């Protein structure tokens, strides 16, 4: 029973990270129709930049993370600008374009930080919480808390600000948005930058939980995408449920199946997508032909 809860806790902390990744994917997909295969690489860059600020520059964790988010958001703006001609025109080419961008980012990371990878020590030095024999590391609580704050902030931004409303409007109807005076290109750029910042946050948070390496974005990106699809693209609650779901499934799979966890999570997710391509909150992707 104890180990069940232990696995659950671990699953929830990873789930929070996946939820952030999923939200980044959803935001970009909903506003631009773009599935960003570079998202995982962006996450990885965020993890590296944050850990560099934290370890080498010795900035406090609470400063390193937002700084990394800003840097990564800037990178996101560059990628969006380069791929803009393809927006809403050729989805397959856009997909490949983002794969290319991701490849470039990964290579840049290897060149900047070497392919060896690094460990990041946890910024929370207190002893883990012990509830009924279940050990909850302080850092995991921090991750969940920060994620919750980020989700709340994003929700507030989307629901309460003019720019947030504009971004949602662009996502729903480009032309009507243009007719009321919204600059669609700029709105997309901001969405992309926010998506990148969310990925960076996820990467920065997951650093102390995993090993930071140039390939860390691959499976995290896929898990995040799976979470986004599962929860249905575009809603914050969906991203949370999808993320937590994938996190918990992954955690139990890792415990039961050892090294095959990716495989198991993946099979579960594929079967779910095939049965219910709409996800829990989401949209249809099936065509009749």
């Amino acid at each position, binding site marked *: 029973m104890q180990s069940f809860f232990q696995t659950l806790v671990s699953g929830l902390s990873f789930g929070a990270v996946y939820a952030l990744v999923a939200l980044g994917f959803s935001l970009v997909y909903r506003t631009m129709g773009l599935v960003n295969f570079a998202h995982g690489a962006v996450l990885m860059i965020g993890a590296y930049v944050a850990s560099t600020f934290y370890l080498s520059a010795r900035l406090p964790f609470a400063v390193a993370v937002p700084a990394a988010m800003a840097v990564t958001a800037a990178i996101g703006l560059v990628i969006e600008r380069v791929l803009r001609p393809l927006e809403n025109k050729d989805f397959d080419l856009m997909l490949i374009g983002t794969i*290319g961008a991701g490849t470039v980012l*990964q290579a840049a990371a290897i060149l900047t930080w070497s392919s060896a990878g690094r460990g990041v020590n946890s910024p929370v030095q207190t002893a883990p919480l012990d509830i009924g024999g279940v050990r909850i590391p302080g850092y995991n609580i921090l991750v969940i808390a920060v994620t919750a704050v980020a989700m709340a902030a994003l929700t507030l931004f989307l629901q309460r600000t003019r720019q947030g409303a504009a971004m949602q409007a662009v996502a729903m109807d480009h032309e009507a948005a243009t007719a009321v005076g919204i600059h669609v290109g700029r709105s997309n750029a901001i969405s992309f930058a926010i998506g990148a910042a969310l990925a960076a946050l996820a990467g920065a948070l997951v650093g102390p939980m995993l090993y930071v390496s140039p390939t860390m974005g691959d499976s995290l990106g*896929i898990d995040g995408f799976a979470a986004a699809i599962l929860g249905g693209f575009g809603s914050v609650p969906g991203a949370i449920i999808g993320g937590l779901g994938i996190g918990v499934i992954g955690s139990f799979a890792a415990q039961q199946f050892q090294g095959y966890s990716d495989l198991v999570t993946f099979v579960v997710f594929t079967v779910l997508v095939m049965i219910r391509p709409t996800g829990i909150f989401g949209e249809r992707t099936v065509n*009749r032909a």
Partner: protein
Amino acid sequence: MSLPSSLASSLPSAARSPRAARLGGLAVLAVAAWLLPYQLNVYWISVADIAVLFALLAVGMGLVMGIAGQVNLAQIAFYGVGAYTTAILTTRDGFGFWTAAAVAMIATALTGIVVGTPALRVQSHYLGIVTLGLAVAFIDWITNAPVTNGDSGISGIPTPPLPGIDLSSQYLYYYLELIVLAGGLAFGLFVVHTPLGRRMRAMRDDPLAASAAGTEIRQLRMIAFVLASVYGGAAGVLYAGMIGYIAPETFSIADMFLLLAMVIIGGRRSLAGCVTGAVVLTIVQQELINLAAYAQLGYGLVVVLVVVFAPAGLVGIPGRLAARYRRWRGHTATSAALEPFQPLPAATPVAASGVAPGEPLLEVSHLVRRFRGVLALDDVSLTVRAGEILGVVGPNGSGKTTLFNVISGFYRPHGGSIALNGQVISGARPSQVSRLGVARTFQHLRLFGNLTAADNMLVSLDRTRTWWSWRYLCHPAGVWRYDRRLKRRAAELLAGFGLAQFAGALPGTLPYGTQRRLEMARAIASSPRLLLLDEPAAGLNGEERAQLAAIVRSVRDSGVTVVLIEHNMGLVMSLCERVIVLDSGSVIAEGLPAQVSRDPAVLEAYLGKSALRAPQATEAGP
């Protein structure tokens, strides 16, 4: 030695023909490839060996992605299944190499079916993530499963035995690979230029129009994935036999993206492009082996540049330069012209459809269709009689195109039914509806943009089922003969429609009126009994409209029943024998054109109802 003048003058023209030039070029390349090992040292021959394997993988990718339009990020997994099956069967179970290879090919094909299954339901980015995930799952498995020895890999794989030839030599192995690549490339090109490949390309360009022309989309997608897997598996088998040792690091996601880069940079729509990309990038990769990260940075950037600026890849660049040169020189206009339409041979509807003139051919009963709560078709019933030209008219948003879309099978009705000559077709797939003899054109022209006019016709002319394709494996000569028959028929039809001079042109280069005619010709090519025309006169000028009317009458006289949606009332009045008027999803009038146009309900639907005053008596206006 001088040639007789007649021979001399005929030679240059033969050399100028593109077909001869291409065959000549191919011959030169083939000879060069055969002689290559003699020029290379030990290091370069191993590079060549790897390049040929990647070329084989790339051809498989090209077939599924460039030709069939399916996103496939699992190619590396097919490579791995081929290699690992061979390795495990030979080292652990003591199979002979060739036996193991045969089993490996079957295993890979089965994997292809598994990977292709999601493609039946989802496309584009969803398919991308599913296939990528399957690849990751495969890598996960080979890294952890005891049977694959995990990270340590499997060594001691025997070299393929061949009587009298020692394939442990990399030089001789090159020839084995080259023969497999040549065979694979030849088969791939054969598929691309014959009915199966043409259907795949049509599906890639416009799945909706393709299914309305009789293409069975799901079967084709599955075949595409199996083809890709077979090429991947073959490469994997060859790899295992060449190196004698395999490990998970060869089948990484990084290598998957490298393979993708090869196909994109080389040109995914051309198999030659895929091979080119594979060879070029392998050489670059090997040369920069110590600067691997720089190489990755490089090809990542090139992929982004290619995708934004030159989507056709390296292989497409000469074509674009040539087009730009031509434009610069002012050679923009083609001299090709539309010729007069030749009336089709007359026939009765009985011959075409088995139904006597005037008897019901299509019966729509109480059809209901909703979109997000809006009732687009509200209890619509109508009968189409064999041999007539029926007009369907109504204001914007009245449900006319929805009606066609339900008949075609694009949408399932929420109520009611449709029967063609007694057989229920509501709920059937578009390709089934097409096979039963219904053809259509579209309001916003749906020609296959990357297929020539002749190819557009060929897709529609091909009435075989997908499973007819087994002949590709067992009886290619039969495929070839069938294709030639189709091509002759296509040429006849194009000539009949006055489109002979445009046979080799891409639809996008044709004038609008010509494109409309081509779409009509394509619909007729499927020998339908019922032809649905959705606003065929949209955008045509007066003369073109008159030609259209003549064509429609001729089509009817050849035994085909015609239903057309039109807004141009003059055309409807002169062409249609009967008219049905829809408004807000319901039939509000039916009858002869002259009757219907005086019906007050119709006038009101079009012109609107006056709320403030009674309709004035009409006066002759200025």
